[in-house]
């Protein structure tokens, strides 16, 4: 009989399934669950974008595109980055259209990290960086961002983790799950630490369009940091296009040209219909983003206020669509809190430790839900906390 254990790559066998899965499995089997769990917009993709996809299908554009993506799309992405960050990237050699920000992250990590290399990851953060880095033999070094610093990365913390083996820093801001952002001043301090090193940075800016009261700033905008920064961005969050599976990488040519080889062999090209539709999104949907951002902003304020009133300290996030309240005052662990909450009140949230050990004591609450949905959830959480007190 075949021995699957001996067949499989030991590293993937040792990779833990994401901590979020458990609660989602529970939620899936229950009725009347109010979810605050998912990390994708509740809005539909703007109609003009959907219409464009229909047109493209009608015209039968169903072939592969160039490996790095439609040139017209890369030109639009280049113009977009220029508009937002004031940086120029050559559409021909410095941009790859990827299957979501997810593939962009995968490409960037795999093309840089070799066994033994140290990879610095700010945590709490999105769940995919660590397993990918570890799969290629990288040694992950976590940098814990802290509530007292508004979950920003500080220069001192960064400096203390850098060794001769450090090759890569993952800088995920605006942050999932904390909602933290890095201001220009914060990034200047980080640039100061990095400038005499040979460390590359993956700047995951997938939530760059969703900042409140402060415009997004990229590390690539600071001094000569562009030469070491690989920007990951995409259409999922900004344009409510998660299911279209489209993102991009922008970075210096010597890095991008190697990453293109992996993309070419692993993926060929990103979904064609999505690429045409994305051109439309970049050209015509600024106003749609603005509308969604305003709506998220009202919800964000509502939730921060509600959690603080409930005695669950909640720092005011300035980005993404999550709040990250502290639940230590309940005496429960994140896992216990989430499990009890879903069992007794049918509200699904995600334990903070799913995003790195240092997320323990927190929960991630998504506000990609309507205000009336959020209100009902808060009503149930209020009851839950009262019953906990007994």
């Amino acid at each position, binding site marked *: 009989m075949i021995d699957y254990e001996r067949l499989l790559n030991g590293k993937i066998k040792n990779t833990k399934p994401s901590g979020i899965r458990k609660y*989602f*499995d529970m939620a899936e089997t229950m009725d009347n669950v109010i979810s605050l769990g*998912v990390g994708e917009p509740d809005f539909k993709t703007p109609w003009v974008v959907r219409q464009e996809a229909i047109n493209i299908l009608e015209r039968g554009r169903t072939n592969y595109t160039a490996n790095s993506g439609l040139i017209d799309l890369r030109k639009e992405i280049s113009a977009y980055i220029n508009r937002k960050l004031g940086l120029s990237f050559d559409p021909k050699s410095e941009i790859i259209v990827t299957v979501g920000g997810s593939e962009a992250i995968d490409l960037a990590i795999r093309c840089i990290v070799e066994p033994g290399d140290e990879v610095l990851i700010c945590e709490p953060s999105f769940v995919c960086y660590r397993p990918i880095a570890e799969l290629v033999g990288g040694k992950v070094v976590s940098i814990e961002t802290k509530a007292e610093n508004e979950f920003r990365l500080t220069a001192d913390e960064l400096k203390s983790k850098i060794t001769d083996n450090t090759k890569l820093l993952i800088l995920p801001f605006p942050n999932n799950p904390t909602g933290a952002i890095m201001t220009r001043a914060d990034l200047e301090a980080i640039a100061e630490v990095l400038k005499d090193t040979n460390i590359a940075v993956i700047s995951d800016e997938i939530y760059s369009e969703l900042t409140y009261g402060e415009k997004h700033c990229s590390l690539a905008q600071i001094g000569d940091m562009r030469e070491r920064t690989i920007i990951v961005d995409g259409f999922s969050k900004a344009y409510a296009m998660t299911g279209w599976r489209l993102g991009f990488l922008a970075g210096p040519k010597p890095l991008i040209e190697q990453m293109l080889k992996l993309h070419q062999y692993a993926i060929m090209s990103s979904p064609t219909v999505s690429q045409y539709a994305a051109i439309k999104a970049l050209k015509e949907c600024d106003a749609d983003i603005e509308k969604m951002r*305003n709506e998220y902003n*009202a919800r964000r304020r*509502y939730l921060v*206020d509600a959690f603080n009133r409930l005695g669950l300290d909640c720092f005011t996030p300035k980005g993404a669509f999550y709040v990250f309240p502290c639940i230590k005052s309940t005496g429960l662990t994140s896992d216990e809190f989430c499990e009890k909450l879903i069992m007794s009140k049918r509200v699904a949230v995600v334990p903070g430790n799913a995003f790195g050990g240092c997320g323990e004591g927190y929960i991630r609450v998504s506000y990609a839900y309507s205000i009336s949905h959020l209100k009902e959830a808060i009503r149930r959480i209020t009851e839950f906390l009262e019953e906990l007190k007994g």
Partner: protein
Amino acid sequence: MDELIRLLKQNARMTDDELAVMLGVSADEVRKMIAKLEADGIIKGYSAIIDEAEYDPNSVFALIELNVTPQSQSGYEEIARQIASYDEVASVRLMSGTYDILVEVIGANIRDVSLFVSQRLATIDAVQSTATHFVLKAYKDNGIIIDGEEKDERSWVIS
């Protein structure tokens, strides 16, 4: 102001305190802004959005196009005001294009609406002709989807 109006259009029953939190201002400021919008005649009132078909399955909703001879003194104003004063009339609008005035009428049944058109509207001297269109089904009203709630189709995936 824009944000306040947007939130009120979404749900006018939110309290001043709730609005204040969502706008990041004080409740006092919200009250002042609302008072000003009301005083300036920008907010005309607050009403519930009713799915009429659900509320009373017999009720009918009609759009009536009128061709009207403008009056020498008042143009369309006086006739429009006259039509607007009927309780059955939900809205009156002066239009560009092939007809002049569009009237929305709600009635208890088709007969009611037909009688209203023939006895109240068609009899106005300046009204030259009418065309009545009965609404078969409403999908969206006042920016709100009323044809069933949209289901949350998002999967429980890790993101």
